[in-house]
């Protein structure tokens, strides 16, 4: 078994016992159950959970990820004195933190769906897309958090950078796209806007979920465009590829910096 998997295994145990994992599980179970109580439409419940996933989850994951890294500096330093490759250490820890968070979200969302919704075959792709977007949001923003914390030793600056990135991606970006679409309304904008939106993982996760749901117009301008432009299969492939790239890019950045870092 490689060192990375061993580190991942024990990191998972550690994070599974953390308060955030329990909070995620309870929050998503309760929130999803309440949504079903007030709204019997599966698509409406999915859209509401998605809005949480693309607004607050990135911030929470960024802050948790940076806090986790800063608080684990002693552990990381000690592990670096063991015969372990730096890349294996970071990847093992990152996966060990990410997967319990993903797992608790998925359980928290899936169980109320199984209990309260009238699951039919038609709604399964949308539920799958919702769970996949949760998965990617956690992986991407945790990788970003690790990248920030490795880059920036100063805790306060690291948190500041995390909040700034969240503000740019979650709030300003859609406004920026809307501005472009209004300003250049006379031009064919579908392709440029699709390209621009792929630079934002939050938009991508939203689009990925919305192309499986007939509620795209509710969830921002880029979502509506994507659904018009791509049909489900093509859109899914493009979105998943872009989301995977978005996961790998900050992770590669984190690994690159970590390999060259002094501790």
């Amino acid at each position, binding site marked *: 078994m490689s060192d990375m998997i061993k580190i991942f295994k024990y990191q998972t145990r550690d994070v599974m016992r953390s308060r955030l994992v329990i909070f995620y599980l309870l929050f998503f179970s309760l929130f999803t159950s309440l949504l079903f109580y007030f709204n019997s439409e599966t698509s409406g419940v999915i859209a509401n959970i998605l809005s949480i996933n693309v607004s607050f989850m990135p911030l929470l994951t960024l802050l948790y990820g940076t806090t986790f890294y800063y608080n684990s500096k002693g552990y990381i330093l000690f592990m670096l004195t*063991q015969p372990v490759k730096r890349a294996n250490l970071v990847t093992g820890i990152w996966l060990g933190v990410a997967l319990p968070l993903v797992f608790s979200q998925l359980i928290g969302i899936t169980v109320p769906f199984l209990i309260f919704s009238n699951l039919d075959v038609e709604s399964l792709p949308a539920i799958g897309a919702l769970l996949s977007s949760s998965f990617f949001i956690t992986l991407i923003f945790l990788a970003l958090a690790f990248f920030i914390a490795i880059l920036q030793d100063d805790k306060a600056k690291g948190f500041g950078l995390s909040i700034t990135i969240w503000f740019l991606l979650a709030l300003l970006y859609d406004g920026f796209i809307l501005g472009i679409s209004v300003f250049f309304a006379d031009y064919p904008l579908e392709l440029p806007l699709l390209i621009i939106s792929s630079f934002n993982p939050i938009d991508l996760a939203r689009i990925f979920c919305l192309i499986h749901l007939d509620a795209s117009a509710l969830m921002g301008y880029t979502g509506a465009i994507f659904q018009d432009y791509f049909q489900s299969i093509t859109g899914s492939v493009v979105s998943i590829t872009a989301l995977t790239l978005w996961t790998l890019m900050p992770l590669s950045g984190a690994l690159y910096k970590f390999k060259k870092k002094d501790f």
Partner: protein
Amino acid sequence: MITITGLKKTYKHHQVLKSIDIEIHSGSVTAIVGPNGSGKTTLLKSILGLVIPESGSISVGGSTIKNSDQYRKQIGYLPQNHGFPANLKVKESIKLLQDLRTDVKDYDLELYEAFGLEEYKNKQIKHLSGGTLQKLSAAIAFMFRPTLLILDEPTSSLDPSASILLKDKIRKVNDEGVTVLLTSHIMPEVDELADEVIFMLEGCVRYKGSVTELKNIQETPSLEKAVANIIKMEFSPCLI
């Protein structure tokens, strides 16, 4: 055991290590001493591979450490601050390291047992006191039968009886041929354990030799006074 040649390290325009050349012989107990900011920690971290030097070379046990992590199999490291995930149990923290160190099958559990850590094995790390964490770190440093022990302030946060147990263990493994490299601000402890001293000041090695010789040069029976005297001395700038 350890050969360091022309080692230099600069942090943000501040040269912390200025061309260090040292040889630490197998089976010795060497203490690195010096005031805060003298470069002791950076030197230790360079040997451990935590700090990447800008120039120079370090070899441990005959093999150069550059771009290698396997040489650390020879090292048992006792950090000043513990490094275990807070929610893991004691036995899980040990198991993690044992899983990583498949090269060792016959663990040295003498210190683990002497410290009575068995009774804490099912406790989570976050529920342990600072002293118990230090005992755990110390027990782990010896567990994989290293040939080189690097101890950073080994007795800090240990009670007197645990401190005696640890020092006895250091002497015992040293008698068996293990090389020990330690840092400490407690000079009587250095006097008690070390046979060689490396005195560092402003990134340079200002003295390297036996403890007895240093005391003789400074004409004092106290190592603490001998070190204090060197700090007050004026030195010519060291080789940069």
